[in-house]
């Protein structure tokens, strides 16, 4: 169980929150998403999404751009290089936990 615990402890705590993990997963698949697209894809409320995006931006995992498209303001979000690396590392850790479990079952 120590190996699991060690791997679990290494999981990025910022990403290991379901809302933020969902946001980063969505942004990892698309180059850029608007706030509305992200909100609709994840079924989050505006407030919830804003809070999570702010935390991710503070950590440097996402960039948030605000601009006008015609006369309408549009907020778009993008994963940074650091965010992509953190996400990849998170996936690697999950994969390692799964592999450890398979190894244990075989033994």
């Amino acid at each position, binding site marked *: 169980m120590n190996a699991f615990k060690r791997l679990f402890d290494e999981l990025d705590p910022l990403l290991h929150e379901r809302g933020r993990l969902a946001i980063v*997963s969505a942004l*990892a*698949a698309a180059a850029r*998403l608007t706030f509305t697209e992200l909100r609709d*894809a994840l079924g989050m409320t505006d407030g919830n999404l804003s809070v999570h995006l702010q935390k991710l931006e503070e950590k440097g995992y996402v960039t948030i751009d605000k601009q006008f498209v015609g006369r309408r303001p549009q907020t778009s979000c993008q994963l940074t290089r650091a965010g992509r690396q953190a996400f990849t590392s998170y*996936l690697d850790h999950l*994969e390692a936990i*799964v592999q450890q479990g398979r190894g244990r079952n075989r033994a």
Partner: protein
Amino acid sequence: MDPRQAAHTLEVIRTLMERTCQYRLLTAGASLAAGTLAILGASAFVFLDAGDPISFAAVWGFVFASSLTGSFVGTLLRGREVGERVWTRQTRMVLLALAPSLAAAAALTLFFFVRGDHLWLPGVWMLCYGQGTLATSAYAPSGIRWLGVAMLVLGALTLALGAAASIVMMGIAFGLGHLTLGFALLSEERRERAVRLYRSVA
């Protein structure tokens, strides 16, 4: 977190990533209906003369219009079922990817009808449809890619076999092709229902 939870989280992440970049409103029901209609259309020529351009246009026009309506209604219902908007970035991308092959198919249909060579159209339609589906494959479920490849192969084969085989090949390509896609989508829909999306992460 135990290995089962980790595997489940990975599955959820995969679904979320697909959800963001894939057009997910394609329905198994619409595909199965289109396949059945194409087989019925091909079977109609047991009684009708395929060489008659009016019968040919009426049958395949009806199959095309009904399939399109079925897809449209299926998309609306699916959007309502999963609580998603129908007119999304993915929808626009899929339509833009389809547009060139649809335009080519329309122009070629007119050309072959005017020349009285309408029996060569099935092969042409398959090639256009294959090209169109492959163009959308970046935003569509994986089954679409295989349908596109199969349509290109069957289109070339239909042209090689000649006009006499075109009706049977229509039944095989558009009928069996869509039925196969429909069953593939059906299992995909079941998988999706089994996965509780981001709400169940961790």
